[in-house]
C-alpha cells in the first residue's frame, strides 16, 4: 500500500491526455485524496509531446515529485522522454498498438495494454484515454464505480450511450490489468480520509477570488499562462451583471481597468511578462492619479517571448521598478492556490484602501499547477473600500464653485475618493502633477508635498495578512530557505528530508514583495547560519532585493533555476546539503 505516488500520462498534444488526467483526478479528489497536477505542454495546439503528472497522496502535497511510479504512454516518445523518472519497480502502461519498447537501462516493467483496440471494440478509438484511466486505477486499487458520477457529469449532454461506453472503456481497461496483477508490485493507495476538498489551478482561484471580491469588470488580452482567469470570469460574470472585455492589447486592458476603477467598479486585468511590459506607463498613471487597479502577472519564461509555456520567476524586479518616476505600489505573491483566492480578495481591498495599483505576482507553476485546496471559507470574504465616498452619499455644496479636494493632504496621505456622477464632487484627475483638487500645478512646494503624500501611503506598512509565511521553529537554525510563489511546497518537502536527517532548517516564504517585509525577514535571517534563496531565475532577483532591504549579504546564497522547469524537491535538498557541508554551492 502507498501513502503517495506519482502518475503521469503522455502523448501527442490533442490526444485526450488532459481529459484522462482531469477525470482521474476529479474522481480521486472526490474520494478525498490530496493531489498536485502539473502539465508539461508546448505552445503548439496539436502535436508535440505533452504530459500531465499527477501526484496522489493521503497527506497535503504542493509540489511535483522527483520520482514517477506509473507512466501511461500513448506513444514511444512518451516512454523515451519520461521513463528515466520511473522508480526501479515502476510501471509503464503503454498502448499495445505502437509495439512499445523499454529504453536501455530502465528497470521498470512495461505492460502493453491494447488501449486503442479496446476503445475500438467499445465503439470509439478516442476513448483510448478512458481505457488508460481504467488500466491505471486497477493498479491504484480504485474501483471503477468511483468514476460513475464524474463520467455522467462530463458526458450527460452527449447521452446515456456515451456515458455507458466511457464507463465500459474504463472497466475493460481495469479488467485487462487485473489479470496481470498477481505479478505486479503493490501500487494500491492507502485509504483516504474521504473529506470533500476543492481541486483547482491558481488561475481558477484568482478568478474566483476576484469575483468574490466584487470585481465586475475584467479587461484583458489573452496570453499564456494567464488566459484561464479571463475565461473563467467570462462564464460567471454575467450572472453578477459584470463582464470581461477582450481588448486590443494590454495597454487598452490596463487603461480600461483604470477607467472602470475611476468610475467606481472593482476591475482587474491579468497577463504575463510581455503584457506587463506594455502596461508599465499606465501603472504609473494609476499611481499618480491614485486610482485603484488590480493587475495579475502570471510569470513565465522571459525575456521577450522567452519560454511562453514554461516556469520562471524573473519579473520580480520589473514589477517593482518598471514604471518611470516614483509611485506607491503594492506587490503581493501568493504561494498556494488557496492563497490565490484569499490574496486576490485582499488585493482589491488594498487597491481601494491605499488608492494605488496592486500587482498579484504569480508564476506558471502556481497559475496552472492544479492542487487540492481545503474548503474555502465564505465568512473570510471581507470587502473594505477605504475612503471611497459611495455614489449615493450626499456631499455638501462646495463654496465659491470650488472643486472637491480629491487629493486633500491628510495625516495618512489618503484622501477621500469621490466618484464621477456625484453632485458637489467635481474634481480633476490628471497624470500631470496636480494640486489638491487635481488641477495641474508646477509649484515646487506643491510638488514636494504631493510626492510625499502619495509615497507616505505605504510608509507605515500595509494591512496585508502574513506578509511572510513562516515554517521556522528553530531559534538557531543551520539554514534558512527563502522562496516565493509556487516553490512553497517544493521547499517544504526538501526541508522535511533535511530535518529527518537532524538538520535544523527554517523556511520563510515571502508573500509581500512590496513594501518589503524587512523586519520579519531580518529576524529570520539572524537566526540562521546560512540563507539559501531559491528562485526560478538566473540573476537572483529576490536575493538582490533581500540584500538591498535586509543586508547580511555574507549569509545569502542564491540558488537559481532557469531551464523552464520548476524545482524538484531533490534539487533543493541537494543544494542545501552542498551548502551545509561545503559552505558554498
Amino acid at each position, binding site marked *: 500500500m502507498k501513502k503517495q505516488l506519482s502518475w503521469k500520462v503522455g502523448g501527442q498534444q490533442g490526444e485526450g491526455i488532459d481529459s484522462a488526467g482531469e477525470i482521474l483526478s476529479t474522481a480521486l479528489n472526490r474520494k478525498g485524496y490530496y493531489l498536485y497536477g502539473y502539465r508539461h505542454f508546448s505552445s503548439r495546439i496539436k502535436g508535440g509531446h505533452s504530459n500531465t503528472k499527477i501526484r496522489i497522496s493521503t497527506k497535503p502535497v504542493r509540489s511535483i515529485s522527483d520520482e514517477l511510479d506509473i507512466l501511461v504512454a500513448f506513444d514511444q516518445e512518451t516512454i523515451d522522454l519520461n521513463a528515466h523518472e520511473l522508480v526501479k519497480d515502476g510501471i509503464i502502461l503503454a498502448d499495445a498498438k505502437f509495439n512499445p519498447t523499454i529504453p536501455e537501462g530502465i528497470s521498470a516493467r512495461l505492460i502493453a495494454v491494447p488501449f486503442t483496440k479496446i476503445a475500438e471494440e467499445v465503439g470509439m478509438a478516442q476513448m483510448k484515454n478512458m481505457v488508460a484511466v481504467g488500466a491505471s486505477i486497477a493498479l491504484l486499487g480504485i474501483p471503477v464505480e468511483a468514476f460513475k458520477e464524474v463520467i455522467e457529469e462530463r458526458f450527460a449532454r452527449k447521452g446515456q450511450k456515451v456515458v455507458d461506453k466511457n464507463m465500459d472503456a474504463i472497466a475493460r481497461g481495469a479488467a485487462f490489468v487485473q489479470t496481470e496483477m498477481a505479478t505486479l508490485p503493490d501500487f494500491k493507495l492507502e485509504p483516504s480520509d474521504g473529506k470533500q476538498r476543492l481541486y483547482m489551478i491558481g488561475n481558477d482561484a484568482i478568478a474566483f477570488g476576484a469575483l468574490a471580491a466584487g470585481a465586475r469588470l475584467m479587461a484583458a488580452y489573452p496570453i499564456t499562462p494567464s488566459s484561464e482567469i479571463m475565461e473563467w470570469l467570462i462564464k460567471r460574470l454575467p450572472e453578477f451583471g459584470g463582464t470581461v472585455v477582450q481588448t486590443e492589447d494590454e495597454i487598452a486592458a490596463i487603461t480600461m481597468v483604470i477607467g472602470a476603477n*475611476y468610475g467606481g467598479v472593482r476591475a482587474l486585468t491579468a497577463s504575463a511578462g510581455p503584457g506587463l511590459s506594455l502596461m508599465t506607463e499606465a501603472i504609473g498613471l494609476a499611481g499618480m492619479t491614485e486610482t485603484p487597479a488590480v493587475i495579475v502577472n502570471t510569470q513565465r519564461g522571459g525575456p521577450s517571448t522567452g519560454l511562453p509555456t514554461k516556469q520562471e520567476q524573473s519579473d520580480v524586479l520589473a514589477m517593482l521598478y518598471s514604471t518611470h518616476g516614483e509611485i506607491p505600489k503594492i506587490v503581493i505573491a501568493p504561494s498556494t492556490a488557496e492563497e490565490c483566492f484569499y490574496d486576490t480578495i485582499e488585493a482589491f481591498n488594498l487597491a481601494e484602501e491605499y488608492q494605488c495599483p496592486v500587482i498579484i505576482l504569480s508564476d506558471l507553476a502556481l497559475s496552472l499547477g492544479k492542487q487540492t485546496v481545503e474548503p474555502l471559507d465564505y465568512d473570510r470574504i471581507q470587502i473594505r473600500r477605504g475612503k471611497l465616498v459611495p455614489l449615493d452619499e450626499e456631499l455638501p455644496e462646495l463654496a465659491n464653485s470650488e472643486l472637491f479636494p480629491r487629493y486633500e493632504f491628510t495625516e495618512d496621505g489618503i484622501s477621500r475618493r469621490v466618484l464621477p456622477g456625484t453632485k458637489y464632487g467635481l474634481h480633476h484627475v490628471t497624470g500631470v502633477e496636480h494640486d489638491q483638487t487635481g488641477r495641474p500645478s508646477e509649484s515646487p512646494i506643491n510638488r514636494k508635498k504631493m510626492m510625499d503624500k502619495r509615497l507616505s501611503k505605504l510608509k507605515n506598512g500595509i494591512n496585508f495578512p502574513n506578509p511572510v509565511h513562516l515554517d521556522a521553529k528553530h531559534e538557531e537554525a543551520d539554514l534558512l530557505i527563502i522562496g516565493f510563489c509556487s516553490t512553497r511546497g517544493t521547499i517544504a518537502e526538501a526541508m522535511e528530508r533535511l530535518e529527518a536527517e537532524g538538520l535544523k532548517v527554517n523556511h520563510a516564504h515571502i508573500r509581500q514583495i512590496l513594501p518589503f517585509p524587512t523586519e520579519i525577514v531580518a529576524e529570520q535571517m539572524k537566526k540562521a547560519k546560512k540563507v539559501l534563496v531559491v528562485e526560478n531565475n538566473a540573476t537572483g532577483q529576490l536575493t538582490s532585493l533581500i540584500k538591498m532591504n535586509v543586508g547580511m549579504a555574507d549569509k545569502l546564497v542564491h540558488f537559481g533555476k532557469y531551464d523552464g522547469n520548476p524545482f524538484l524537491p531533490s534539487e533543493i535538498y541537494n543544494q542545501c546539503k552542498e551548502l551545509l557541508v561545503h559552505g558554498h554551492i
Partner: protein
Amino acid sequence: MATFKDFRNKVKPNWCPGCGDFSVLAAMQRAFANLGLEPEDVAIVSGIGCSGRISGYVNAYGFHGVHGRALPIAQGLKLANRDLTVVAAGGDGDGFAIGMGHTVHAIRRNVDITYIVMDNQVYGLTKGQTSPRSAMGFKTKSTPAGSIEAAISPMEMALTVGAGFVAQSVSSDLKQLTQVIEEGIKHKGFSLINVFSPCVTYNKVNTYDWFKENLVSLSEIEGYDPSDRNMAMQTLMDHNGLVTGIIYQNKDRKPYEDLIKGFKEEPLAKQDIKISKDQFDKLAAEFM
C-alpha cells in the same frame, strides 16, 4: 437647469490665442447645456497634447490620462457607470498615431461614448512635428524636407471598420460644431467626430482661411443621405475628405452595452458587490 456657463470653470486655458481648440471647448459646453445635462453627469476623458488639456477646462468630471489612451479609459468608465455621459477627446496624434489601435477597436466595440478629435494636422504640444494627418510634403521640424508618408483619412477609416456615427466639423463653425457634438452624444453607440481645429502656431498651411476655401458642408450637397454608407464613402473620396456635417449614421446598430449578456440598466458602480453564500457555494462546487 444648467446653462453653458455652468460648464465653465476658473481655469484659464494655456492654449495660444487663436487656437482652434477654444471653439471645441465652447461647443462642448453648449452641447452639454443644450442636452439638459448637469456638470456631474458628464465625464471628459482626454489624451495628452495641447488638445488633451480640454478635460481640465470644463466644469465637469475630467480625467487627463496618458498619450493615446483616452479611449480605453473612457470605455472602462462608461462600462462602470452607464448613467454618465462620457466624452473622450484628444489630438490627431493622440487618436490616429499612438492611439490608432484603440480608435479602430473602440469603433468596432461600439461602447456608447463620443470621441472628439481636435485635428490640427500637426503635433502641437511637442512643438511642431509631423502627424499622421499631415499632408504629403508638409514641412515640420521632424520632416524638414516635407512629409513622405500618406496622411490618414480618419472618416474613411472609420467607415471601413464599422462606425455607427461619423461626423466632421471645423472650429470656425461653432453652430455646426455644437450641433454635431449634440448629435454624437445622442447617438446610441460610439460616435467619432473629427474637428478641423487649426494650430495657429505650428501649422501655417491648414489655416482658418485654408479651411474656408476647401471645406464643403454636406448640407450643401443636394440629396445627401447620411444613412447611406456607400454615398458617405463616395462623397469622402470625391472631396478628399474635406466635408463637414454628419457623414454617416447607423441608428440600428446596438451599442456594446446592450449586447453584453446579463448587463443591467443600473450602472455597475451602483450595484451591490457582495456575493451571497448560495452563489459562493455553487461556484465552489465547480471545483469538486
